[in-house]
């Protein structure tokens, strides 16, 4: 059996590899036109990486199956919809409230906060929402957690869709299916405001967010908290008996995971220039979950690869490369409508050929190949 010490050394060795990958990713946009659709797909993929890394904390590290992750995408997106657009057009007597914004946005009605401030708001809102979704699941295990989180995702999705009927004073909560648009472009200090013509700054910002989230992920994995999460995943009863407070540890996993979803949501809201309730569907939760399963549950680098792979399969492979295929063999249907069928097919193939994921976590690999750590015994009388 491989010793963990060896793996740990190789982890330091791979640091150079990571540096190289970051450099390559950093210069990538120069090989494409500034408005190229490829850069567009890259930006989307990077935003998905952030979400997948967030979900990985909840599902991969702490072992809490969360099927409602889309809720945090939604809340993050509404953070910028509410605080970075003209949506609340009546505030301050129609003058708008502006914090740290310049240019066009500074004269528009509604809340217009600087993007960094919106990120903070998104993180706070989603972390709280994460803890709230965590609360009812504390007494539950395995599949039951999945059902409750699924319901939570649906509830947030429904609120988003019907939010145009929910009145907050003179305003509605959301714009429903019409969407909140336009949304303020990212405006960072010392940098020219982003535009929809030049996608490079968006790309670099998304890359920076990925690096930030990666950093936090790695640090947390190798910390007291990370160990507590993994202990919890391995054996909840033993973890509690060894002094790990279950409630606090689980809620932290939910909150941190959710916060990453919020960051990504706020970014995508600005990037896509709309916050539309149709974006927040159950299938999106599954899409992100499929990314981390494809990459390797619990494996940080696996999740990055899985998210990029699935994102590109979704945005390039299916619509561009595979779509003409049915036409060529005399069939008449649109392959993009089958994309979830294709994801499902890919997952089945993966489960047969490589169930531990593309880049498996060292622990998980053992679990799947030798059937270890899957025992569920409810000795503990759970109480919140």
């Amino acid at each position, binding site marked *: *059996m491989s*010793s*963990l*010490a060896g793996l*740990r050394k190789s982890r330091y060795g791979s640091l150079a590899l990571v540096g190289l990958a970051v450099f390559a990713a950093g210069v990538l946009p120069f090989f494409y036109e500034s408005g190229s659709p490829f850069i567009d797909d890259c930006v989307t993929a990077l935003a998905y990486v952030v979400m997948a890394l967030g979900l990985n904390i909840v599902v991969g590290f702490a072992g809490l199956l969360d099927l409602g992750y889309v809720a945090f995408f939604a809340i993050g997106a509404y953070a910028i919809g509410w605080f970075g657009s003209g949506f609340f057009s009546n505030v301050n007597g129609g003058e708008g409230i502006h914090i740290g914004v310049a240019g066009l946005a500074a004269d528009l009605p509604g809340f217009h906060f600087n993007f960094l401030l919106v990120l903070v708001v998104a993180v706070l809102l989603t972390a709280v929402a994460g803890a709230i979704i965590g609360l009812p699941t504390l007494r539950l295990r395995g599949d039951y957690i999945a059902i409750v989180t699924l319901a939570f995702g649906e509830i947030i999705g429904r609120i988003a869709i019907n939010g145009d009927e929910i009145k907050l004073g003179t305003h509605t909560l959301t714009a429903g299916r019409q969407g909140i648009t336009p949304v303020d472009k990212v405006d960072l200090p010392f940098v020219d405001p982003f535009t929809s013509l030049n996608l490079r700054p968006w790309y670099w910002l998304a890359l920076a967010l990925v690096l930030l989230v990666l*950093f*936090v992920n790695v*640090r*947390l994995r190798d*910390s*007291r*908290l*990370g*160990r*507590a999460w*993994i*202990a919890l995943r*391995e*054996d909840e*009863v*033993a*973890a*509690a*008996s*060894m*002094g*790990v*407070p*279950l409630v606090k540890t689980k809620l*932290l996993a939910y909150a*941190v995971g959710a916060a990453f979803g919020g960051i990504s949501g706020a970014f995508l809201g600005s990037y896509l220039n709309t916050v539309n309730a149709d974006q927040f569907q159950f299938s999106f939760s599954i899409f992100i979950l499929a990314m981390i399963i494809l990459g390797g549950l619990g494996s940080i680098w696996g999740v990055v690869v899985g998210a990029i792979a699935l994102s590109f399969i979704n945005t390039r492979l299916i619509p561009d490369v595979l779509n003409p295929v049915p036409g060529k063999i005399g069939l008449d249907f649109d392959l993009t409508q089958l994309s979830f069928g294709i994801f499902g097919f890919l997952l089945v193939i993966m489960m047969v050929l490589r169930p531990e994921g593309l880049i498996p976590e*060292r*622990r*998980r690999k*053992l*679990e799947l190949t*030798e059937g*270890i*750590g899957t025992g569920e015994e409810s*000795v*503990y*009388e759970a*109480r919140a």
Partner: protein
Amino acid sequence: MNAGATSEPAPKPGNSDVDGLLLEAQAIFKVFGGLVAVEDVSFSLPRKSIMSIIGPNGAGKTTFFNMLTGLYKPTSGRVLFDGEDVTGKRPDKIMAKGVARTFQNIRLFATMSALENVMVSQHSRTKSGLFGSILRTPRTRREEREATEKGRQELEYVGLKPSVFEEMSVNLSYGDQRRLEIARALASDPALLLLDEPTAGMNPQESAELTEFMRRLRDERGLTILLIEHDMKVVMEVSERITVLDHGEKIAEGKPEEVRKDERVIEAYLGTKA
């Protein structure tokens, strides 16, 4: 009986401390649905003593352990640790007060290394939180270093070879896994160590070593030890006092030689005379 237990005058907190008692269980009941798993068991454990709970399978021994460590909440009765009422407190809170345990069927964190296992059990002795861990502040680093060092010491103390410290616990030999479970409990600096059938699956030689080791724990580290055990040789040799449970009730208590001769104990183990 239930009413009788509650109408008893409650001993003042701190009482058991004066008596030199580390743990006191007062009239503990545990009912699962219609099944009375533990019935009116009172029990006290002097400091720096080694005591055993024995009894046939299904006598309620492990259930009783689970109530002492907070995994189960007693239906009625009180548990005092170090003079403080810990009845129904959360397992991690009780562990933080100084009660550590091992499990009958080994419950290590299978895919964590031996060292990581003994670091998890230091959770309640360490502090670094979310932001400290992300920023890896000097305090966090020092704490990590100390926890690692402490973990290594405990692993050595129970006799694990340094070559297996980084090995996933599931890959360790059975004997090493048993040792690791004890090391994991010790790493939390407990005052009371609860061992649930520690010699299960051990050969006589290993059992004898463990007996010796338990004495060492008491003498070197001042630990109080309570064990559930089926190996009568170990029980008779190591225990100062023995409590016998049968069908959830305490049927005998006393020195090993007294318990050995007790009619009801013989009956419980061998059945009634025809």
